[in-house]
């Protein structure tokens, strides 16, 4: 590109170059100026609903920067007196129809409406508060998501997330003008519609209208009870995101501080879901190999993501035979802990042991309540909830002395840690399946085509040569991509033998339980890099090489897929259609 091709515009009189940026807002961001927004989410379509991002453009007047394309030579001012006045009025108008009891709101502290109201000095609202009797009831029916429409500012981010990521459209606008609301079909409870609990609606919500349900109180009850022994486990992607709540960079691995914090909080036993991610790989890879040998129920669908499993049960109950019967890592570890910990640790019995898991996910809260799983996981916390407990306890997380997890059930391989990013499960499964078939390890353990969490990597494939047989693996994130893959299978057009699905765009690193990442697409990439970095740095990178896993099979489970393994580590699925016309009464 020559100098004359360069296009520039002026933001607050500073010349800024632009190239692929689609909007003034993106150009401003590049120049280091963050324009306030509610409805703008880089991973969703532009919407232009909230008008918070207005800027003043010379000869063009006031424009919404999130929908205005950049043009060479424009002179944009992002913070003039006029702009500030408009933004302040917008805030006042939004707050006029908003339940303003901030202290009792679970979003307090991370609410964008609260943040901007402070920044713009909204100290007086000339409109009356909503009367108590006019407040809408709060929907707490779901295990995962709480819906409080008194906090909704109609930015439509949730509506877009549900449509554009999951293709479900559980939430949509209802009515118009003053009467407009965001709601489910006929305002049914979230529990009674075909919601998969992925929580992406909550993770893009700028206010407390949609939040992930909290179960902290229950954990404090366990910790405060001397009779109860508490075990905790951490999902792979938690270790590269938790630190963000304490000023660490996204992707920085704080796993050993995390263990230390758990012990400081009073947990008796600190385990790692990564251990059972390795276990999942042993079972799932074995299942895959068996299916390939028998040529049945192919392609195999991974079953780690509870939102995806629920999607299959809701939308494709005729294809449940494709799902791997292996439980998710959370459930595998809970079952394993409940079964074996009393044998290894003194004073712990099946009865007095409670298992708490820390997950990047809202759907895991639902999964723990699945009847098929018998309540092995007692409580599920999100990454953010766990961070809040650390904050409440006054623990200086950044300066914690690093500790190790308990052993057994705490050691893990690199294959386990990459579960947290879309493509990781398939990569780890292939490493182990290859070994199961050939008796040798892959020459190059990195299966690069399966990596990546940006919007372009929501569907990716890799072909492997295993003893002259070509095996194709498809990896998708978001259910809208999963649906495409499932249809290929239904129509007999699928040429892949394994399908990995994660419901959240980019996988668990971008789950609804993680610290807010919807305003910056780069955060999930940094978290992903953190996981692959750990994989590379670990002495053991294959699940089948994890000594604790080997020991567990040698002493108890015998082989993957054995009778005991099936009893403990596998589950069943069933038709759970809801909210469809088939469900009408």
């Amino acid at each position, binding site marked *: 590109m020559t100098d004359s091709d360069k296009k520039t515009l002026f933001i607050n009189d500073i010349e800024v170059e632009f190239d692929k940026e689609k909007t003034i807002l993106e150009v401003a961001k590049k120049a280091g100026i963050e324009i306030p927004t509610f409805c703008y989410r880089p991973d969703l379509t532009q919407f232009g609903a909230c008008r918070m991002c207005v800027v003043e453009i010379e000869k063009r007047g006031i424009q919404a920067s999130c929908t205005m394309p950049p043009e060479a030579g424009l002179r944009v001012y992002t913070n003039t007196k006029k702009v500030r006045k408009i933004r302040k009025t917008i805030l006042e108008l939004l707050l006029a129809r908003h339940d303003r009891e901030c202290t009792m709101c679970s979003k307090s502290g991370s609410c964008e409406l609260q943040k901007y109201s402070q920044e713009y000095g909204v100290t007086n609202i000339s409109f009356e508060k909503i009367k108590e009797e006019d407040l809408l009831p709060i929907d707490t029916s779901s295990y995962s998501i709480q819906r409080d429409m008194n906090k909704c500012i109609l930015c439509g981010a949730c509506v877009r997330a549900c*449509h554009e990521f999951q*293709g*479900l*459209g*559980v*939430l*949509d*606008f*209802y*009515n*118009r003008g003053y009467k407009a609301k965001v*709601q*489910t*079909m*006929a305002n049914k409870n979230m529990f009674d*519609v075909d919601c998969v609990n992925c929580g992406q609606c909550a993770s893009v919500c700028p206010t407390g209208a949609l939040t992930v349900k909290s179960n902290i109180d229950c954990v404090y009850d366990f910790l405060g009870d001397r009779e109860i022994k508490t075990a905790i486990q951490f999902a792979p992607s938690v270790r590269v995101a938790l630190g963000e709540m304490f000023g660490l960079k996204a992707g920085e691995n704080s796993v050993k501080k995390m263990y230390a914090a758990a012990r400081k909080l009073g947990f008796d036993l600190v385990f790692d879901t990564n251990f059972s991610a390795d276990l999942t790989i042993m079972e799932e890879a074995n299942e895959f190999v068996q299916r390939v040998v028998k040529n049945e129920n192919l392609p195999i669908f991974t079953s780690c993501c509870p939102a995806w499993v629920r999607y299959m049960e809701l939308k494709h109950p005729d294809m449940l035979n494709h799902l791997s019967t292996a439980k998710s890592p959370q459930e595998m570890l809970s079952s394993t802990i409940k079964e074996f910990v009393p044998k290894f640790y003194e004073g712990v019995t099946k009865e007095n042991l409670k298992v708490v898991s820390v997950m990047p996910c809202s759907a895991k809260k639902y999964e723990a309540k699945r009847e098929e799983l018998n309540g092995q996981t007692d409580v599920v916390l999100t990454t953010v909830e766990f961070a809040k407990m650390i904050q409440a306890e006054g623990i200086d997380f950044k300066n914690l002395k690093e500790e190790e997890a308990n052993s057994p059930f705490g050691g893990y391989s690199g294959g386990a840690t990459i579960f947290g990013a879309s493509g990781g499960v398939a990569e780890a499964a292939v490493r182990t399946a290859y070994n199961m078939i050939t008796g040798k390890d892959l020459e190059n353990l990195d299966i690069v085509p399966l990596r990546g969490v940006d919007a372009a990597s929501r569907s990716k494939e890799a072909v492997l040569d295993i003893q002259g047989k070509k095996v194709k693996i498809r990896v998708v994130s978001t259910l809208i991509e999963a649906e495409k893959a499932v249809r290929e299978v239904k129509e007999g057009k699928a040429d892949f033998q394994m399908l990995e699905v994660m419901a959240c765009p980019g996988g668990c690193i971008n789950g609804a339980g993680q610290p807010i990442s919807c305003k910056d697409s780069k955060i999930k990439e940094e978290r992903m890099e953190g996981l692959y970095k750990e994989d590379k740095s670990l002495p053991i990178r294959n699940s089948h090489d994890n000594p604790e896993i080997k020991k567990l099979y040698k002493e108890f489970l015998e082989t993957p897929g054995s009778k005991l393994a099936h009893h403990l580590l596998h589950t069943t699925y069933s038709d759970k259609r809801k*909210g*469809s*016309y*088939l469900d*009408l*009464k």
Partner: protein
Amino acid sequence: MTELKSSIDFTKIDKILSDYGYEKTNLITVLQKVQEVYKFLPEDAITYIGDKIEGLSPATVLGVATFYAQFSLEPKGKYEIKVCDGTACHVRGSLPVLEAIKEKLPMENGKMTTKDGLFSVETVSCLGACGLAPVVVINEKVYPQMTPEAITLIIDTLMKEEGR
């Protein structure tokens, strides 16, 4: 196939959907045709349409149905009374006419149809008959230059015809 417990005959809706190719872009036409059949849009029909058209959901179809004033979610009466409240009718006194109707036909809070299902009342924007303001339309018949007294008389006559 699972036995359906709805009071709605889905085969009728299926016919309409297939006439319009189960296309997302034809949603409004589909809703209009369904409303012609039932005189309103039953909730079960909305759920069905949301399930059957790719790219839509029941919540989305309901959103469209509630966005446009032409769609009704509750059954309309045998007599559909439309009171024009466009600018001309408004300044010539459409609201007193509406009040007179409401007094004559008491309805439950928030409802637009009388309990016996005989009358439904709604205001509409300009009907294009400003010269005749204020205008009331009952089913297809236009009543010009309405007053509270005149509309009361008209409703009385209709009620008498129905034997009330």
